């Protein structure tokens, strides 16, 4: 009996000292750990754990108080946005999180709009790339990319680098439409000609026909946009099998050729040119810090990708905001603190657009080469500090 009592007392003391010495700030992360998008959840979480291993799990607030930053992870299971929304409600109402983050899929991020506004919860979007998203709520900040950033840059670059005719083959879904739209626009604006455009059904893996059509149109290059994984692998296979590569036609792509996916391609992929905002092998010290830490913690599974870098920078932004405003400020205060911030990211310099709360960053053109026996993306051009073109085309109505 006595033992039991003293135990309770001890617990009480621990609890009291706990609250006295530090505040906690809870962040809910929603991403898929299972299903078709299973890699995203793990990639986000690994990067966040690596970030906290280096920068500490606590931040010093404006009054010198120590704030414990706690993450609560939830699996959106590659399911519909209703699932993501339900998880967000649980996190806000039961776990009392003060911020939400994660979101690899645009529909998931979009579904957070009314929760964030009603509960005044800032949402740091770590992937979801549909351009319009950040307009959905004043509580949204994005640290990843917008699709028009990629498509516009590679379109212009192609036209300026000796590619005059392009055949585009994109996957027939919303992100594919964005990519097609902005590629066509920028490529034509820079003097190029689109000699054909096809949309393939969402899970297509039989690309022979499209390759045949492209071959007959005799373009200088084929521009593709396919979901990562089996569609893009089949695409590249069909591309070289059909003799397009031998015919000297270049292949232009996007995120399909991230380092994470490269081991699943055969050597046919060498020479492919892609656009991205993060080249995994870049030599920046910030990148080295992040990659070394991830390798140290997760070994072979510590490969970095756009998910890691977005999570890393997202945490960096959150830490900055907490340093300025402590653990119990109004949601919009944190957003204000993030607006206009510039950071040295592992991907290069980035800035949060003060008006749109969206990311402004360098965009890189890379070529796949074999470096030391390994397929690697090598930078061949850089376009500095690109602002989302969609927002420039669609200014906020006042």
């Amino acid at each position, binding site marked *: 009996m006595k033992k039991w009592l003293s135990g309770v007392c001890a617990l009480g003391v621990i609890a009291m000292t706990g609250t006295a010495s530090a505040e906690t700030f809870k962040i809910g992360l929603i991403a898929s750990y299972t299903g078709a998008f299973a890699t995203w959840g793990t990639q986000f979480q690994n990067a966040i754990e690596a970030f906290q291993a280096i920068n500490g799990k606590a931040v010093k607030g404006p009054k010198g108080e120590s704030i414990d930053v706690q993450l609560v992870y939830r699996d959106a299971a590659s399911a*519909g946005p209703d699932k993501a*929304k339900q998880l967000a409600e649980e996190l806000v109402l039961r776990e009392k999180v003060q911020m939400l983050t994660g979101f690899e899929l645009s529909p998931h991020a979009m579904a957070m709009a009314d929760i964030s506004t009603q509960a005044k919860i800032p949402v740091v979007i770590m992937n979801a790339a549909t351009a319009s998203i950040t307009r959905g709520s004043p509580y949204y900040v994005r640290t990843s990319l917008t699709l028009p950033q990629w498509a516009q840059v590679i379109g212009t670059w192609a036209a300026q680098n000796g590619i005059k005719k392009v055949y585009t083959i994109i996957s027939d879904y919303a992100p594919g439409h964005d990519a097609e739209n902005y590629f066509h626009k920028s490529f034509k604006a820079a003097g190029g000609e689109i000699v054909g455009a096809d949309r393939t059904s969402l899970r297509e893996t039989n690309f022979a026909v499209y390759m045949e059509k492209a071959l007959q149109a005799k373009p200088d290059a084929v521009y593709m946009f396919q979901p990562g994984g089996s569609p893009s692998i089949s695409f590249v296979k069909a591309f070289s099998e059909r003799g397009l590569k031998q015919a000297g036609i270049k292949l232009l792509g996007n995120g399909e050729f991230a380092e994470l996916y490269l081991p699943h391609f055969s050597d046919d992929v060498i020479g492919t040119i892609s656009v991205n905002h993060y080249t995994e092998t870049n030599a920046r010290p910030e990148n080295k810090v992040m990659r070394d830490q991830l390798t140290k913690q997760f070994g072979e599974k510590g490969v970095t990708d756009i998910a890691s870098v977005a999570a890393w920078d997202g945490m960096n932004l959150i830490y900055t905001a907490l340093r300025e405003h402590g653990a119990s400020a109004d949601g919009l205060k944190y957003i204000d603190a993030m607006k206009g911030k510039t950071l040295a990211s592992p991907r290069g310099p980035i800035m949060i657009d003060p008006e749109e709360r969206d990311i402004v960053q360098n965009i890189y053109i890379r070529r796949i080469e074999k470096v030391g026996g390994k397929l690697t993306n090598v930078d061949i051009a850089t376009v500095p500090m690109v602002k989302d073109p969609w927002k420039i085309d669609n200014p906020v109505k006042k």
Partner: protein
Amino acid sequence: MTTLTPKSLPASGLGTMAAGQLSFVGHALPWAIAVVFFFVAGGYLSFGTQVLIWILFALSLDLALGYAGIVTLGQAAFFGLGAYAAGLFAIHASSDPVVGHLVAVGVTALFGFVTGALILHTTGVTFLMLTLAIVSIMFEYANQATKLTGGDDGLQGINVAPLLGVFEFSIFGQTAYVYALVVLFFWFVFSWRVVNSPFGRSLDGIRQKPARMRAIGTPVWRRLLAIYTLSAAMAGSAGALSAHSTSFVGLSVLSLVTSGVVAVILILGGIRRLYGAFVGATIYLLVQDWSAKVSPYFWEFIVGLMLIATVLFLEGGLMDLGRVGRNFLNRIRNRADVK
């Protein structure tokens, strides 16, 4: 909930309690649980709303598949159509949820009627493939028509006005929960009356011996069409609830997986007893919620095993567990007696 004994089975083994009393308790129990849940749920209320919606969806399938023996894999077509209809109506016409709901139900009923009239003369695998084809075509269309549906990004900007002009749909989800519960109750009572009517009895006959029913003059095709249309309307109603409660419609409402999951839920719970949908949806979503946290692919594996086991050993679904258990105990007792 497993203690509940459906009407179609003899209320044996429960001793002195009269059948009437028992059936009253049986009926009151699930609804009482649903009402109590409202007060104790806290942050889980929107999970509760999801369960209610899936119950209604599974209930709609029970009418077609369970009672009338229409083996379909296209039920998601109605759920999805109802969701898109409700969502689009809220965006382009009126944000009143009740009107939107009625419109969605009307649209899906009409769609069920038309497609049913086209394909109900076929049976077996052919029918199965036709339902698959319909839902796949709808999925592809919703994916391509990004201007109308938002495609893969989903239908955005659904604004739902307060229910009856008073109750707002907030993140706390009270309105959505009560709304879903009331709708479910209405459909349940309706279905109960339908399956216990002479019309419902004739469906039983059609399921078991369509040729014989035809021989005694039952208009088989018309009966099937009627129940198929009703089932479509109910699924559409569930879809509309989903659109209103989450103010969002994603492409996945039209996916084959949605069709599959609802069948799994119904079979797990037990077909042809209406309450099977209740048991199935609750257990399925609870186990899914829990096991997805344990290990990634564990869930799929468990569902697969559950399906195989249900088909092989538990033809009446989980609602049969009580009876199977009793039989097992009796057998052991008998064996002991022999010794």
